[in-house]
């Protein structure tokens, strides 16, 4: 990201004047690129120029591979029929409309087994229990899928999962390369998110809470920790305004290019990346940053601090250090000089997307929060971010690479540009529905996962072309999150650990951890296990779905796994409880517990012959171990 400009040595003031005599800053490439703090999207996904991203190709590939190898081929696979009409304006209306227009037959619907595992993992980060699976599958009443979804969204695990998701988005970590929040600050922000999710607070209200938070103690008022994350140390205060602005536009608006524009005009830098960005100036970006220019985040040493640590954050407006509109008075810092142009020494706030300015009686940040949350782009970016999670690929992808000039299907950009979303009508329609439903996240998730589009299988009957990936002709697979791997093993084995986590007491599930690093406390060897599954650190390491040698070593040999496949383990454990069952029942029980499905004929025969040879208890251990190492365990398909 353009947070840093320290080593950008070449600052040229060209003769060209961008606006009001503010000079163009010509900055050399390629160092000054835009890579926002959401760089996992940048890393694993690539630019969405012609709607054929390498990322989409990769997940498409992965899906084809996994689906082709799913040993379980459900008996009720059927070919999709477009005969069932979709209500105009719905997800299915647009997705199946696009498929039909392209003459592409989508994948068959998920079986009940596929659906309950997928949706339970996606919504709650857990696998379903065997009894949940059986009950659901045998339920013959209508709308059982929608009722399952309602149950999952009401479950406490839903809160855990989405607190982790939003913690990733807000980069809620105890330490980044610039500042610390300490465990108490991380917990406070998590508590805020949990509370908001529990109360189903409208998402626009959450955004306002986080952008406008004012207070003296970030351990007590969790929302203060969002802006604290934009503090850049050692430089002029404009570095902080700019970083906070960049973070806000990245997290809430999906426009990470604002970060670029805070260093230089878009022309000459973003021309190939963003039509909007190429036409936007640094001056305009300063108008956005000016909304933060009356805000100061300071530190106070907490009681009992040693050498000033731990400390908490105070965020206040119109302080001595921050009471002037964005000052053009620096030659230093992480970005090119901010120098006066003629008599103009300050930049006043203006939401240049619509020309709005702060109203009387309103703080600058209140004005910014109002402008952002009343901007249609806010709804569009939010639904797209959640879409990207549930479908593995955003309608705009990566989700923070929005190009505001390429979103309107009624006003498409001139060639060679194309509309940016793969389905612009769908994106706009879903965003408008989200607004109509008061920015209700539960409504949004329910609407997505209840769609037939989401419920398509990752299997595909017949020849499939990767060109159909952009049409969402089949579901894309994902490797389970680190926390999901951990919790699935703990839950299915019925050997649930207890961890002591700083400021959080005893926690049983990894998805409840306050952040994806350094937890749980020392003495529990599970931290390396969790790290092996690339949970990221909300700073410079990305949450990633990649595989690794360490993951294989850990799933095969780590005590966390090995202690859970013992025939002489704790009395209540999966294997001990079921060891005396007849072979076929034991096999079925283990499959249902670990993989949420029954074995297919070949798997059953293989497992039966394995159990019949050698020491049965050992063979049963081997079988359970094999299930934890099966590829369909580690993927959500």
């Amino acid at each position: 990201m353009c947070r840093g400009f320290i080593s950008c040595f070449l600052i040229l003031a060209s003769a060209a004047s961008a606006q009001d005599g503010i000079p163009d800053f010509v900055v050399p490439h390629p160092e000054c690129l835009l890579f926002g703090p959401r760089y996992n999207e940048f890393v694993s996904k690539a630019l969405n120029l012609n709607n054929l991203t390498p990322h989409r190709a990769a997940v498409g590939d992965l899906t084809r591979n996994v689906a082709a190898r799913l040993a379980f081929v459900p008996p009720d696979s059927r070919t999709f029929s477009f005969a069932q009409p979709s209500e105009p304006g719905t997800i299915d209306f647009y997705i199946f409309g696009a498929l039909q227009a392209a003459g592409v037959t989508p994948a068959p619907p998920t079986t009940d087994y596929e659906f309950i595992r997928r949706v339970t993992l996606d919504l709650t980060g857990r696998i379903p229990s065997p009894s949940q699976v059986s009950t659901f599958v045998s339920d013959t009443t209508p709308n059982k899928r929608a009722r399952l979804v309602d149950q999952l969204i009401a479950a406490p695990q839903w809160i855990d999962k989405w607190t982790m998701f939003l913690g990733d988005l807000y980069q809620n970590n105890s330490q980044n390369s610039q500042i610390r929040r300490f465990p108490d600050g991380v917990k406070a922000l998590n508590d805020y998110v949990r509370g908001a999710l529990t109360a189903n607070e409208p998402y626009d209200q959450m955004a306002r809470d986080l952008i406008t938070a004012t207070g003296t103690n970030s351990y007590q008022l969790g929302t203060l920790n969002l802006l604290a994350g934009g503090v850049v140390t050692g430089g002029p205060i404009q570095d902080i305004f700019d970083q906070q602005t960049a973070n806000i536009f990245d997290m809430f608006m999906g426009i990470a290019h604002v970060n670029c524009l805070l260093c230089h005009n878009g022309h000459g830098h973003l021309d190939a990346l963003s039509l909007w960005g190429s036409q936007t100036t640094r001056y305009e970006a300063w108008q956005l940053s000016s909304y933060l220019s009356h805000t100061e985040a300071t530190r106070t040493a907490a009681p009992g601090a040693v050498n000033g640590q731990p400390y908490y954050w105070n965020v206040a407006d119109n302080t001595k250090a921050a009471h002037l509109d964005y000052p053009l008075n620096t030659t230093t810092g992480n970005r090119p000089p901010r120098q006066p142009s003629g008599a103009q020494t300050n930049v006043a706030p203006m939401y240049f997307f619509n020309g709005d300015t702060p109203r009387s009686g309103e703080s600058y940040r209140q004005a910014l929060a109002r402008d952002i949350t009343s901007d249609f782009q806010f709804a569009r970016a939010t639904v797209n971010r959640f879409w990207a999670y549930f479908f593995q690929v955003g309608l705009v992808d990566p989700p923070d690479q929005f190009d505001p000039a390429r979103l309107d299907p009624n006003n498409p950009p001139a060639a060679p540009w194309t509309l940016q979303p793969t389905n612009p009508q769908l994106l706009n329609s879903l965003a408008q529905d989200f607004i109509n439903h008061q920015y209700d996240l539960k409504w949004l998730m329910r609407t997505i996962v209840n769609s037939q589009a989401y419920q398509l299988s990752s299997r595909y009957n017949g020849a499939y072309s990767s060109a159909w990936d952009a049409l969402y002709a089949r579901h894309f697979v994902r490797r389970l999150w680190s926390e999901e791997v951990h919790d699935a093993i703990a839950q299915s084995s019925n050997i649930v650990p207890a961890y002591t986590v700083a400021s959080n007491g005893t926690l049983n599930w990894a998805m409840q951890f306050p952040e994806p690093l350094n937890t749980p406390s020392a003495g529990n060897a599970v931290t390396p296990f969790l790290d092996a599954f690339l949970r990221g650190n909300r700073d410079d390491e990305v949450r990633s779905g990649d595989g690794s040698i360490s993951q294989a070593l850990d799933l095969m040999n780590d005590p966390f796994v090995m202690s859970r496949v013992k025939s002489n383990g704790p009395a209540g454990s999966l294997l001990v409880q079921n060891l005396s069952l007849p072979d076929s029942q034991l096999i079925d029980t283990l499959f249902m517990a670990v993989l949420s499905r029954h074995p297919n004929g070949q798997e059953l025969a293989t497992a039966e012959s394995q159990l019949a040879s050698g020491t049965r208890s050992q063979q049963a251990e081997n079988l359970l171990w094999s299930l934890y190492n099966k590829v369909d365990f580690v993927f959500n398909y």
Partner: protein
Amino acid sequence: MSERDRVRRFFKRHPHHHLTFFQRPYVSRRQFFQIAGAGVTGSFLLPRLGQAQQPPTSQGVATQNTAKNVIFILLAGAISHTDTFDLKVVNGVTPTNFAPATVNGINWPMGLLPKIGALLPNLALVRSMQAHALVHTLAQHWTQIGRNPAAALGNIAPNIGSVVSIEKTQPGQLFPAFIALNSGACVTNGYFPATYAPFKLNPLATGIPNTTNPDDPVGAAGGRFSQMYTQLQAIDGPLRTNSPYGKPLQDYNDFYTAAQQMMYNKVVDSTFAFSSTDSARYGSSSFGNACLVAKQVLAANQGTRFILITNLNWDMHQDIYGQQNPKGNNLYTMGTPLDNGYSALLTDLQTGGLLNQTMVVMVGEFGRTVGPLSAAGGRDHWLQQSAVFAGAGVKGGRAIGSTTADGSATADPGWGRGRSINPEDIEATIYSALGIDWTTVRHDDPFGRGFEYVPFSDQNLYGPINELWGGTSTT
């Protein structure tokens, strides 16, 4: 007190001439016009649209190409340069038992680091080095990626070791090309595939964790693990082998294959495990054990080309000479393990014939304040620092560059570029030593705009310290 106030007070208390975090590298008038004339705007606009991925490009510079391997020792926390590699005796301050001596014309604390002192004929000390930043995490990342971590590509930039890995990994090699010892928090593979991530390991006498299944200590053919693995393949075979569809699932299976190869592998065990006798020879410390394992890894010659060793706890704001608490974290308690581990490593590499093909680089993320100690009896953060090079044809017994009398700033840069040496130059030096064209630009970064191995190489802003390989000594 706000951060800004703290910084202000800091510089008030330390009225040295200093080059700030933000001071930009010097650009000559000639370079200026070269750059301006190159037309930095608009040059890659349309070709990018719909453009397929390009192979890496480079300027085709000549490299030193004397090293097969690199060991990179990061003295995290920042070692005090004027107490060690750029010794400046301060009367009444420097402890007398530092026993300053002149070896090859180089001042050295023979009392503090005697064993390294004895190896000075092998070492080239770079004394004209300066960091860019005084924040630990930031500067440590800077050192490991050779660019500004807070800048554009910094956030997704791979560790230098991952660049070496992507350049040097050979098919079928047993060990990962990049191993990071005692480096849990090190920078990883950035935007590169996970294949080039550091294999992170805290050396244990027993070797790599989880390469032995707890239910099968021996791993004999037909034994418990072999049965388990066979059963896994039987029950999961259709999902993981003979993938005709593409790489991802094969990749996933490849990880299992690689993991299984590392298990019960005598080469792996003998390389990553170690005896207490050897450990004692390296000083019986975690740093010493890392040095020992690094030596064993290179001797095994199984494809590892870059080893990062992190040596923590050099951040000595208080009691740097241990006058209050001799057993606390001070130059003696840190210096002795460093002296033992590093000297044993260099000696073993030399004895084993590996030193002439292995460059050993030792550097902190910045330096420490010079002259009298702070009120707390320590030294605070300072940009001026030193780096130590050995092996792979580096001509030892010399210092490159020199500092002012108190060690606070570069007096003589001592190399061709005529300015202080930066982390980017260290990075370029490593690539050059390994025969990697340090002007390479990859075009596979997420934005397709070019990832430069060394930033600004198109403008020749940073480059290798070629003086390490030749020239006469300057002290």
